[in-house]
C-alpha cells in the first residue's frame, strides 16, 4: 500500500505524471480502432446473437435433476416435435434449460411432460415460458427512446453544472463510445443479447457519465480562473487534474467492479444463464470501458476542443514563454 499511496502522492504533486493529454493521438487511435472493430466485427460475424426474448420462442427449465445430460432434453423435445431443434444449456449443477422455437400450447404441455419423464422429476419442476418475438423488441425500442431522452437531459444538466457545453459534448461522446464498444463486444463474442444485457447496457449510461462527471469536476476546479497562476498551460492543467484523480478513478472502478464481478461469478457459475449473469456481464465490460474512456478519451478531447479558444490560446502562449524562460534560467542550477 505504501507504494500505491506514494504513487497517489506523486500523481497529486505532479512528481510523477502520466502524459494523458499529450498522447491524445495514441488514445484516439486506440478508441477509433476499437469502435471500428465494434462495428465491423458484429457485421462480419453476422449480427448479434439475440436471445429468445427477441426472436420469440418457448423456454423450459427443469430443476432438481440428478443427471444434467443434454441428450435427454433433446430427445424429449424431438419426441414431441421432430422438426424442432432445441438449444439446451445447463443451469447451475441441477437445472437444465431448453429453448425452442415457438410451440403451440399443446406442444408445450407435451414437452413439459416429456421432460419431466425424461429427467424423472415431478412435472412441477419443469417450468415453461413463452415469449413473443415482440417482447424483446418492445423493450429495445423503449430503451432507445430512453437513451435519447437521457442523453438530452444529461447533456443539459452537465452543461448547466459545468457552465460549458463543451464538457457536456465530450462526456456524451465518451458515453456513446462506451455503448458502442460494449455492444460491439457482445456482437463479436456472440454473447447472447437478452433483456438483462440491455438493462446492463442502459446502466452503463449512468455509470459512464457518473465517472466522467467526477473527473471533469476536478478539471473544472483546476482550470478555474485563480489556479491559472500556477503557471501551467490549459492542457497541462487538465493533465494534472486527471492525474490527481487517477487514484480515485482506479479505486472507484475496482470498488464498482467487485460487486458486479461477484454477481457475474455467482450468476454464471451457480445460477447459469439468467438475468444476473446478463446484467453483470454487460455492466462489467461497461465499467472497464467507461473508466478507460473517461481518462483516455474524454479528458484529452476536452483539452483539445478548449485549447483553441482565443483566450486560452493567449494565456497558454504566455505561460509557455515563461516556462521557456524558467527552463533557460534553471539550466545552470540543474547542471
Amino acid at each position, binding site marked *: *500500500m505504501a507504494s500505491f499511496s506514494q504513487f497517489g502522492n506523486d500523481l*497529486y*504533486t*505532479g512528481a*510523477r505524471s502520466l*502524459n494523458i493529454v*499529450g498522447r*491524445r493521438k495514441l488514445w484516439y487511435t486506440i478508441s477509433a480502432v476499437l469502435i471500428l472493430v465494434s462495428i465491423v466485427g458484429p457485421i462480419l460475424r453476422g449480427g448479434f446473437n439475440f436471445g429468445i*426474448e427477441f426472436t420469440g420462442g418457448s423456454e423450459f427449465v427443469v*430443476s432438481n435433476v440428478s443427471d444434467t445430460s443434454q441428450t435427454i432434453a433433446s430427445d424429449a423435445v424431438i419426441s414431441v416435435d421432430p422438426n424442432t431443434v432445441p438449444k439446451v444449456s445447463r443451469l*447451475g449443477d441441477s*437445472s437444465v434449460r431448453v429453448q425452442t422455437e415457438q410451440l403451440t400450447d399443446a406442444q408445450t404441455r407435451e414437452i413439459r411432460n416429456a421432460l419431466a419423464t425424461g429427467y424423472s422429476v415431478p412435472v*412441477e419442476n419443469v*417450468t415453461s415460458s*413463452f*415469449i*413473443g418475438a*415482440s417482447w424483446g423488441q*418492445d*423493450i429495445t425500442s*423503449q430503451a432507445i427512446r*430512453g437513451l435519447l431522452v*437521457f442523453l438530452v*437531459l*444529461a447533456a443539459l*444538466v452537465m452543461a448547466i453544472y459545468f457552465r460549458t457545453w463543451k464538457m457536456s459534448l465530450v462526456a456524451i461522446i465518451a458515453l456513446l463510445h462506451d455503448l458502442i464498444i460494449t455492444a460491439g463486444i457482445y456482437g463479436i463474442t456472440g454473447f447472447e443479447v437478452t*433483456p*438483462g444485457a*440491455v*438493462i446492463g447496457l*442502459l*446502466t452503463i449510461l*449512468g*455509470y459512464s457519465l*457518473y465517472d466522467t*462527471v*467526477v473527473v471533469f*469536476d*476536478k478539471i473544472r*476546479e483546476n482550470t478555474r480562473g485563480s489556479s491559472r*497562476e500556477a*503557471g501551467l498551460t490549459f492542457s*497541462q492543467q487538465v493533465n*494534472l487534474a486527471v492525474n490527481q484523480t487517477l487514484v*480515485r478513478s482506479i*479505486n472507484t472502478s475496482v*470498488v*464498482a467492479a*467487485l*460487486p458486479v*464481478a461477484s*454477481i457475474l461469478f455467482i450468476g454464471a457459475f451457480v*445460477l447459469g444463464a439468467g438475468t*444476473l449473469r446478463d*446484467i453483470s456481464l454487460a*455492466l462489467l465490460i461497461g465499467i472497464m470501458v467507461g473508466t478507460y474512456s473517461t481518462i483516455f478519451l474524454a479528458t484529452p478531447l476536452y483539452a483539445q476542443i478548449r485549447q483553441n479558444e482565443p483566450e486560452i490560446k493567449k494565456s497558454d502562449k504566455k505561460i509557455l514563454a515563461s516556462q521557456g524562460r*524558467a527552463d533557460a534560467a*534553471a539550466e545552470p*542550477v*540543474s547542471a
Partner: protein
Amino acid sequence: MARSQSSRKALRSLTWLLVLVAGLFGINAAGVLWGGGSWLPKLALDLEGGTQIVLSPQLESGQTVTAEQMTQAVSIIRQRIDAAGVSEAEINTQGNNNIVVSIPGTPDDATLARIEASAKLDFRAVLVAGAPTSTAVGADGTATPVPQGTVDPNLSTVPAVAPSNGSDLNWITPALQAQYEQFDCASENAQAANTAPEDLPLITCDFTNTVKYLLGPVEVSGSDISNATAGMVTTSTGATTGQWAVDLAFNGKGTKAFGDVTTRLNGLTGSQNQFAIVLDGKVLTAPSTNAAITNGNAQITGGFTQASAKTLADQLKYGALPIGFQVQSSDTISATLGSTQLMSGLLAGAIGLLLVVLYSLFQYRMLGLVTVASLVVAAVLTYLVVTILSWREGYRLSLAGVAGLIVAIGITADSFIVYFERIRDELRDGRGLESAVDAGWKRAIRTIIASDTVNFLAAGVLFILAVGNVRGFALTLGLTTVVDLFVVSLFTHPLLQLIAQTNFFASGHKFSGLDPQALGAAYRGRAQFAPAPTVTSGKLAKSSKEALKRQTIAERKAQLSSGEKGED
C-alpha cells in the same frame, strides 16, 4: 471554538439521521401493526415463483389505445381473474399498452383463456330473476334450499315449443330450470359458468352477486353501441333534475335491434320487462324498459351517483371496444427456482460487499471502517424504504432489483472514495486534519451531488420510459442514489468530523489512512505543514497557494516535463 462547533454540527447531523431512521422504522412498524405491512419486502415472481403473463392489445394498424382504455382493460381483466377464483393476482399496466398479470403458482388453461378473451358486452332480455342462492320458492311461498348436485340428465334440454322471440319463456327447458334453481352465485362453479353461446339462454349473476338471472339469447351486441356518456337527466325544458343517468347511442344495426327489444319488453311485466347488459358473462345492470326506444338513443336512470354513472358509461363504451388482448409472453418460475435465485442474489451481494470492505480496508486502513459503517447505514435505510414501498406501493423486489442494489454498493462506496481522496488532497496541501475534513467536504459534496444527479437522471429516465424488469432495476438504482446522498452528508461527513478530533486520526497514525507522512505532505518541503487547529482555513489556503508559487524550479520542471512532452 472551531472544535466544539464542528462537533456540535456533526452531532446535529447524526441526530437527524437517527430521526430519519427512527421515522422510517416507525412507519414500517405502524404498517406491520395496523396496515398489513411486513418487515420483509414483497418479492417479485422471479424470486417467489409464479406466473407472469404479459398481454398486449391486438390493434388494427393505426389504431391506438388510450390510457383510459387501458385502465378499463385492467379492471375488466381483474374482474375476470377474480371470477376465476385466483387470489393475490396483481394486474398492472406496463409502458403504454401492455398489461402484466402476475399470478402465484401456475394458472390452468381455462384461466389463461379467460384472461386472453376480449371484453364482450351483450344485451339479453331477462327471463327470470331471483335471489342469488340455490333456493326454490315452493307453492306454499316458503323458500327451501335446493340440494346441490348434477342436473338430472334425463331432463329435456330442447324447448318443447320453439321460442318465438328473446323473451319467450319457452326458452326455459326443464333442464335449464333445474340448473337455474341449483345455481348459487357464491359457489365456485357459478364463477366459471357464466358463458353461453350467443343464441342460447345464459344463467348468471350480477357483479355483486346479489341477483341471479336466467337470460334469453343475445339480442344486441355491445359493438353496436356507438357511444355512452354519463350526464344529468334533463327535463323537456332543458333544466336538470339533479339525477345522474347514462346515455347510450346505438349505430344503425343497434338502433333497429334495440328498438325491437324495447318495443317487445315494454309490453311485458315483472322481470321480463328488464333487459340485462352483460359484460363478460356477468350482468352489469338490468334496467327495466319504460318505453320503446326506436331512435337509437337510450337513457338508463335510477340510483346513479356521478361516479357509478361514469363507470357504467365507460364499461359500456370500452367493454364494447373490439380490443382483444394477446398473450405476449408467459413466464412460469417454480418456487424452488425462485428461492435459488434469491439465495444466489443475496450470496452475490454478500461476496460483493465483503470484497468492497476488504478493498476499502486495504486502501484506507481505519478509514475503511468508516466506509463499512456508512455502507451498513445505507443498507439499513435502503432496506426500510424498499419495505415501506413494497407495503404502500405494492413494489416487489425482483432479481433485476437485487442486481440494482448490488451494483449500487459500488456507486455508494464511490462517494466515500471521492470524499476521502479530497481529504487526502487537502492533507497533502498541508492542512490539519480537521480543516482538511471541512475543506475536502466542501469540494467533495459538489462532485458527489453532480455525479449523483446524473446517476439519478439515468435511473429516472429508465424508470419512466422502460418496462418490466428494467423498471425494478431503475427504481433500486435511483433509490440508492438518493440514500447515498443522505448517508454521505448525514453520516459519513459528521463521523469524519468527530473522528478527526480523536488522537488516533488527528495525529495521523500509520493505520489511520490519513497519515500526512505517508500522504507526502512533507514531500514538498513545506515549512507550513503543521497540524495546528488554530490556523484559519483562509490563512491556510493562502499559504498553500504561496507554497505553490514558491516551488523550486526543479520541482516545477518535474511537474511539467511530462505534461509538455507530447504537446504539439
